[in-house]
């Protein structure tokens, strides 16, 4: 499979789905099914961009620690709550609240690493994985204890205007979500490729011991990676909180798993892969929902996980693990 394969795959599915809708609608004498599918794809792009933000945290942490941070969904939840409280209780302007929520989530991520993972640095991977699951459950319950189980409304603190582009309906909140996700990805790409800390992250991911011999503080680099991944998850949490007008202590479970699927789909440990995996997952989900029904949404995501693990465990962009010389 080449680089273009994922894209052509999505296009093919979209084409088939479009054909399906047009034929169904022709029976009803309506037409315009192609438009409906493009409408769905816009929604898929918005959801997918939030999956991508979550997936980036998984993939970066996996890169430096070979660990699936199963508490990542809870950090997303913490970010959503932080954003909600900063907008409602502290009445901060939206962008300030978003940035501050990211900072708060980054701190939570660093504390999680320090408490749950760092003491197990030399333990088996199974022990760390169990610690991760424990941390996830702990944070959910901490959220329930602090905020209670009821769903809170998260109305965007700015007017949401709906409009049409080329016959497709969208609104300013969708566009803002895409813009935030895009800005984060560009920023991350710059950070990883150009900054000293980014180079340290890549060095630790490729060879932790050799990185230490370069004078890189491995612990500090790992903490930094958690901070960045957590901040991205918080951005996703705030945007999704507003998109669904809902924030709850258990909101991180499903998006956390979806982000993980997206990271695996793109190739775990591969940063552009996580971005692509998130977008592709979002699109496939909406297309599946359009073709089947919305009850299938989660099943589709996990079917993708199983298929990727069976047939292409290195993901869309990941290369099969190179042999160590």
């Amino acid at each position, binding site marked *: 499979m080449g680089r273009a394969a994922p894209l052509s795959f999505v296009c093919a599915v979209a084409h088939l789905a479009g054909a399906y809708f047009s034929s169904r609608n022709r029976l009803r004498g309506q037409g315009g099914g192609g438009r409906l599918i493009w409408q769905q794809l816009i929604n898929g792009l918005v959801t997918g961009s939030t999956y991508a933000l979550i997936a980036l945290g998984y993939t970066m942490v996996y890169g430096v620690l070979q660990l699936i941070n199963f508490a990542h969904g809870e950090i997303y939840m913490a970010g959503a709550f932080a954003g909600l409280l900063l907008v409602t209780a502290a009445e901060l302007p939206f962008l300030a609240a978003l940035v501050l929520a990211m900072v708060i989530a980054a701190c939570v991520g660093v504390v999680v690493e320090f408490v749950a993972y760092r003491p197990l640095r030399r333990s088996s991977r199974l022990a760390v994985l169990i610690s991760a699951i424990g941390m996830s459950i702990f944070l959910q319950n901490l959220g329930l204890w602090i905020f209670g189980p009821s769903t809170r409304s998260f109305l965007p603190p700015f007017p949401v205007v709906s409009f049409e582009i080329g016959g497709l309906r969208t609104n300013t909140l969708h566009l803002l979500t895409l813009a935030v996700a895009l800005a984060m990805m560009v920023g991350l790409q710059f950070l990883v490729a150009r900054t*000293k800390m980014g*180079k*340290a992250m*890549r*060095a630790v991911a*490729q*060879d932790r*011991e*050799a*990185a*230490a*011999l*370069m*004078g*890189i*503080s*491995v612990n500090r680099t790992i903490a930094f990676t958690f901070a960045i991944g957590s901040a991205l998850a918080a951005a996703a949490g705030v945007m999704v909180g507003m998109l669904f007008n809902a924030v709850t202590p258990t909101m991180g479970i499903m998006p956390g798993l979806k982000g993980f699927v997206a990271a695996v789909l793109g190739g775990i440990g591969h940063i552009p892969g996580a971005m692509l995996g998130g977008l592709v997952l979002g699109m496939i989900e909406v297309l599946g929902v359009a073709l089947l029904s919305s009850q299938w949404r989660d099943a589709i995501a996990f079917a993708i996980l199983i298929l990727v693990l069976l047939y292409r465990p290195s993901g869309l962009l990941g290369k099969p693990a*190179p042999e160590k*010389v």
Partner: protein
Amino acid sequence: MLVIDGVVTHYGPIEALKGVSLEVRQGEIVTLIGANGAGKTTLLRTISGLIRPTHGRITYEGRDLFSMPPEQIVAAGVAHVPEGRRVFPLMSVAENLELGAFARRDPAGVREDMERVFRLFPRLAERKTQAAGTLSGGEQQMLAIGRALMARPRLLLLDEPSMGLAPVIVENIFQVIREINAAGTTILLVEQNAHMALATAHRGYVMETGRIVLSDSADRLLKNEAVRKAYLGG
């Protein structure tokens, strides 16, 4: 310059170093020879902080290295070229060299040193933008040494620089090791190729199962009957 005194290091329950003492003086090339599993690599890893020793003292220029993390040991002026080269395979040659200078804050000096590495190893200059994982074994060894030099170390630890390389390339690498030493860097060299190592070094230590069993000038070790039998093929 470097004084190691009674160092004991464990891998889990296994005692890999059983009280090792040795000394490296300013300006020397000191070699440590011995069979596979004698503990040579463990000693280098203990010096550079990758493994914590359980007992003993390690002092470098009067400073205690015993409980320092690796990044501080690098900053103190000790660079380690690890066994198996361990270059960053997905990064370019230039990026690998930049990482070698990670702890430094003098961009002008770093540029200067990169030019110096390219003069020592012209092959690396030709492959500046190539991913390190695609280099040949010899080129990777050159890169690993160049990367360590980028830290501008006063003491260079070299672990098996000849491993798996063709004789011509080994000659070339040892020539560069002598040049690096002549330019003022002290070297502690671990080698299985005892002949090459003793021909290059000023002094040598022989290690067996976690202990130093012999130490002398390199010339005398080359002529030593026991050493000839065990490590030089008779």
